[in-house]
């Protein structure tokens, strides 16, 4: 920028003010890290990282996780679903498995998808938050390409995310003995964020849910309209359906797992899941083979640090080790040079 205004000639004193800012004399501490400071910092960081790494690994090891990929197991169902016209045909598939160890504590059931890109730019945008908030069910502006059906009726819930809702039903049953199978009690509540359930998603206000959605139509891939998602529990129906809300919280990566059910710790399952034979009964609706995707179901217990993931623990361990390595080599260099370095009394060579 070109020129500054010239100070007026007539101002009484042109002597600049003697303030610390103007004279660049602001009191300040000079950040000058000493060798010992840096080295001890490195060692301390190293110790911390190593320690944290070990703790994380141990805690991750303490949790249990079982993952069963049922894409291939239920190949016939998968085949059926590849043709979109078969959407109304039911297909179930049972997957037996054996639990060698009791899963203690809270057990969570997840479904996991491989190769499903919930993070595509267009996909992510294709939703209407104001519709989901229940204020204006017909606000489908941002939902392209799933905003309106062919006859122009707005879709509720609109958008690609809602349309692709994961709609497999997974039921876990426990083989109490050779003849008795009991269904493991699972909770379908408490699997969403509080803010999602109570702030972000609201049903349109009306005496009757189906009338609230009057004038809208169901998404093209859905077998039934949104107000029939859970007809037993009005608190879990419509936009407030937990499974729907979980699905609408899009995943960051193409491989992801989403919470499906929590174990209700009653009867046989107070301790957790006892060891024994189980089976998943899947009503297979969600097609993945068409895009080379896979899906699996995961049972997992948790620790304070989250799930069964070893990555963080390993990363901390590696970082700690690297830090120590660096600290040792820096110390070596420093000590080697120390003799050559000037002592404070030396004159700086000029």
């Amino acid at each position, binding site marked *: *920028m*070109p*020129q*500054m205004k010239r*100070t007026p000639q007539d101002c009484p004193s*042109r*002597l*600049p003010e003697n303030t610390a800012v*103007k*004279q*660049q004399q*602001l009191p*300040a*501490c000079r*950040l*000058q*890290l000493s060798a010992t400071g840096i080295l001890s910092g*490195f060692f301390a960081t190293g110790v911390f990282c190593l320690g*944290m790494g070990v703790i994380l690994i141990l805690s991750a090891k303490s949790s249990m996780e079982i993952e069963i990929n049922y894409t291939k197991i239920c190949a016939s169902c998968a085949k059926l679903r590849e043709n979109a016209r078969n959407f109304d045909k039911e297909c179930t598939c049972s997957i037996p498995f054996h639990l060698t160890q009791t899963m203690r504590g809270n057990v*969570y059931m*997840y479904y996991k998808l491989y*190769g499903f*890109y919930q*993070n*595509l*730019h267009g*996909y*992510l945008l294709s939703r209407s*938050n*104001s519709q989901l908030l229940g204020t204006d069910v017909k606000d489908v502006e*941002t939902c392209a390409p799933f905003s309106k059906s062919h006859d122009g009726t707005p879709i509720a819930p609109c958008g690609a995310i809602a349309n*692709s809702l994961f709609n497999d039903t997974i039921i876990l049953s426990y083989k109490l003995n050779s003849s008795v199978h009991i269904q493991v009690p699972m909770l379908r509540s408490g*699997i969403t*964020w509080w*803010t999602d359930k109570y*702030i*972000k998603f609201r049903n349109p206000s009306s005496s009757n849910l189906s009338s609230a959605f009057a004038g809208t139509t169901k998404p093209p891939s859905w077998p039934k309209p949104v107000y029939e998602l859970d007809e037993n529990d009005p608190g879990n129906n419509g936009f407030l359906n937990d499974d729907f809300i979980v699905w609408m919280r899009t995943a*960051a*990566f193409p*491989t*992801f*797992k989403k*919470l499906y059910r929590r174990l209700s710790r009653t009867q046989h399952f107070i301790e957790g899941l006892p060891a024994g034979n189980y089976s998943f009964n899947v009503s297979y609706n969600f097609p993945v083979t068409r*895009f080379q995707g896979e899906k699996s179901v995961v049972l*997992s217990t*948790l620790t*304070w*640090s*989250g*799930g069964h*993931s070893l*990555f*963080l623990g390993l*990363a*901390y361990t590696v970082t700690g080790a690297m*830090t120590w390595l660096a600290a040792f080599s820096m110390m070596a*260099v*420093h000590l080697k040079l120390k003799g050559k370095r000037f002592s*404070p009394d030396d004159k*700086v060579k000029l």
Partner: protein
Amino acid sequence: MFCSEKKLLEVERKVKANDREYNEKFQYADNRIHTSKYNILTFLPINLFEQFQRVANAYFLFLLILQLIPEISSLTWFTTIVPLVLVITMTAVKDATDDCFRHKSDNQVNNRQSEVLIDGKLQNEKWMNVKVGDIIKLENNQFVAADLLLLSSSEPHGLCYIETAELDGETNLKVRHALAVTSELGADISRLAKFDGIVVCEAPNNKLDKFTGVLSWKDSKYPLNNEKIILRGCVLRNTSWCFGMVIFAGPDTKLMQNSGKTKFKRTSIDRLMNTLVLWIFGFLVCLGIILAIGNSIWEKQVGDQFRSFLFWKEGEKNSVFSGFLTFWSYIIILNTVVPISLYVSVEVIRLGHSYFINWDRKMYYSGKATPAEARTTTLNEELGQIEYVFSDKTGTLTQNIMTFKKCSINGRIYGEVQDDLGRKTDITKKKEPVDFSVNSQAERTFQFFDHNLMEAIKLGDPKVHEFLRLLALCHTVMSEENSAGQLIYQVQSPDEGALVTAARNFGFTFKSRTPETITIEELGTLVTYQLLAFLDFNNIRKRMSVIVRNPKGQIKLYSKGADTILFEKLHPSNEDLLTLTSDHLSEFAGEGLRTLAIAYRDLDDKYFKEWHKMLEDANTATDERDERIAGLYEEIERDLMLLGATAVEDKLQEGVIETVTSLSLANIKIWVLTGDKQETAINIGYACNMLTDDMNDVFIIAGNTAAEVREELRKAKENLFGQNRSFSNGHVVFEKKQQLELASVVEETITGDYALVINGHSLAHALESDVKNDLLELACMCKTVVCCRVTPLQKAQVVELVKKYRNAVTLAIGDGANDVSMIKSKRTLTQWGMLHTWSPRGAHIGVGISGQEGLQAVLASDYSFAQFRYLQRLLLVHGRWSYFRMCKFLCYFFYKNFAFTLVHFWFGFFCGFSAQTVYDQWFITLFNIVYTSLPVLAMGIFDQDVNDQNSMDYPQLYQPGQQNLLFNKRKFLICMAHGIYTSLALFFIPYGAFYNAAGEDGQHLADYQSFAVTMATSLVIVVSVQIALDTSYWTVVNHVFIWGSIATYFSILFTMHSNGIFAIFPNQFPFVGNARHSLTQKCIWLVILLTTVASVMPVVAFRFLKVDLFPTLSDQLRQRQKAQKKARPLHSRRPQTRRSSSRRSGYAFAHQEGYGELITSGKNMRAKNLPPTSGLEKTLYNSTSWIENLCKKTTDTVSSFSQDKTVKL
């Protein structure tokens, strides 16, 4: 800019005096000027158009347009428009205020009053209403309103004097004279009103020194030239009134024709930055292409099926086309690598640095109440990279005050101050000066510390009397009495002023002169000498003499001049005195004083008469007149009796020696470019330690022809290399080889100090293309270069030469109008409010010394301050800091944006290259302008590696700037690598952690929004930690900004993720509850912590090793400072060595030829002073020629050296 509005090209101008109707049909421009660019209506369109001409703004506009295409848009519109609007508004506001000032000054100028002859009466009229053809009356010291044809004036012969400082920067008075026919009109209003001459002249143009036209009046034609024209912008001086006829008005005036478009200076960092931005664009395109190809492949292999699964209608789209769209989408996303805030921040930092310069009390000169001033705010960091300083002499290095210091009379030195033991001491305040109060005529300011001289005068030492008498008689000074009855000398060379004033104080007061007589007061008695002859000074004779007859009838020749010349003219009987005096002269010279030898001769009447007759013959002779006169002068100026010598001090500015020493320790080469004569220039070189007697050689190039100059240069070079070779015999071959290879290597191999002195004439030849390189090579190997007698144009040429061929950053410093050429090259806002633009020559940075002679240099300069010594602080402290800060700022800024932006690239591989951003759109919008701008600005403005005292004490600290070490392409690549590394850590650590993780409550963690928040938080923390490490000077501002930024980030984050704001704008803020949910998870904090450690630790280790292994000087200093808390600065100033008195002439006399003639003709004396004798007749006899002579001589001298100008003492 203005002439473009003219509809027709004017070929010839025809103007009739006092006839507005006649002139109106030509539709000449009136005298109103516009320098403002906008008015209220045009401001917005023009300003926006101008702003979008800048590459950066245009680029962001382009991005904005891209974002409006829905297929491409990957970011919402506000991410680009918010910063862009911010920047555009800021610039627009600034432009508007600038233009307001221009409007004001236009108005002020347009509303100035001038007296115009309308309807036979003089009427006051605003400038803007003056029309072509009007007759204007001007009074003394008034500005000229338009380009005028001078008609008549108060002075005899229709003369008038003008100062053209506003136009060409010359402060000398110039003479203009009216045509004889018009000058007869005088001040007779009725006759002037009837004047109806028609001027036919050239069309408006910008040539300040040319005018051709014809005046037709009363059936006769009179040719007109530049001598008869007064241009707008001049000031009338020494002329009580004059009348002129308007020829060119307003935009047609030569002054306005000389103004044009503004050209801004750019710093080397600017240029580097532009290159880097281009590199980055290239890099961006590469990334875009990679991602676009990725997208095409992905679409083909995965996307097709995936999309059709979703019943996506676009499922059928061509994968190549999709790649193409993706390319543009990514260009938009990745544009933050070069954020628009970069340019704004750079400007803000520079502005801050400029204010620091303005505020610096240590650059405030209380003597003139002038603070330093950064007049340009865009060049600060270049002050830290200066390699060459081009300095003017007078007024810059010296104060342009001559004081009579010492003299040697008859073999005895007066003026030396001795302490009780008889040793020479420096003059201190304690010593009592000689009391001149008894002498009523004494000049108060004159001080002399040796009482012996006064005693010798009182004792009546005839030699001393004769010496002082000579000083009072032999000169060209004019005397005047001011209203208070005090004697005032008008001198044309300050040396003479000093000498005559000294004589005056010692009781030999020069009172008055006529062409025939000189009256002086000798110790109280008035004595009138008859001036018989005046043997004028010129540069070959290097002396001047007067021949006078004293009241006793004795004829005496008094002479003063260069010792080298005068000593040859002495009578043989002076042998002993000569040896003694020349010893004294050497001593004076050694002290840097300017010396003159003084001698006289008694003439007998007969001899003189014969000689005088011969002189008159010679004067009237037509052929070889000058040679004959010179011969006669030579003839009479011999057998002189030596009286002694004078020593005049050309007072240096305060602290010049220290500054020069310190700057040369900082490896800054100082070149002195002066209009002074060679002797004067060399003298001052010695006085301020640039030239020393211990120098191996001082090459003097003073050839008259191109061949001579070439030969001298060749010899000097040979000498240089020859001597150098003899120093290191063993390495001759090796060195020679090196010399052939690279000039810069040669520079390294030169041992010993050399200096080059070159004069203007030689320079003119040396600047010719074939010799140029020789000159440059030689000059750059010399420690000191002195160019003397250079014209303003040559000053600029020399600067240009170094700038162009050495590729070095240059600074020119000067005080006078003649320095404007080397200082300027950017617009100057004169008091006229007009934008002057000269050709874009001149140094990278111009510094003006303010408060000296006029304002021209200051107005043309980028920085100004009152004393040369402040240059040291400006460069070593402010310049160094600015450069240091700017480099740190840029490094960090590029790093930050690479780290910020490249995560999108990595994310591309996981989101099907669909141009999905990692962060929330709001975060992208705010990151650069809110979350991270202030800490880096604080660092860019306040950071200091070493304090100012140390910067001054260790000039070597300046060198990294000259070598461009702190920010260059290599550094940039390092920053880039650093940024890329950080972005990798930022992306892949959360990725790994999230891949298969679940939250504490079992809910899945890896949703897009949580990932975005985690990444954003890590990024803000990592870059804040990084800036905390980079900041080496933690002031309270830094604390506030760094902590404040983090706090701001979290508060904005929580606000944007709050329920309330979501309820109002559900579509704009979909991240509701995210911050609350994610940031309460331990696991997420562990990720953030790990990311921070992983991205910061390697940097710390790297820096530690660098400081340990290759400590820079400032590292050492800081370590030392730390070790000794109370660091006492090492005073590296070397003691001022007394130079051994070598036999070197100290002759340096700033004097011009031509004034002798002026005096003997009596032209410059007021009529009342002229005795009614034959002198007047002689005057009239000569009258035609002297004006031309004077004009010729003035222009001659002006063009060659405007340094030596008339000064009033």
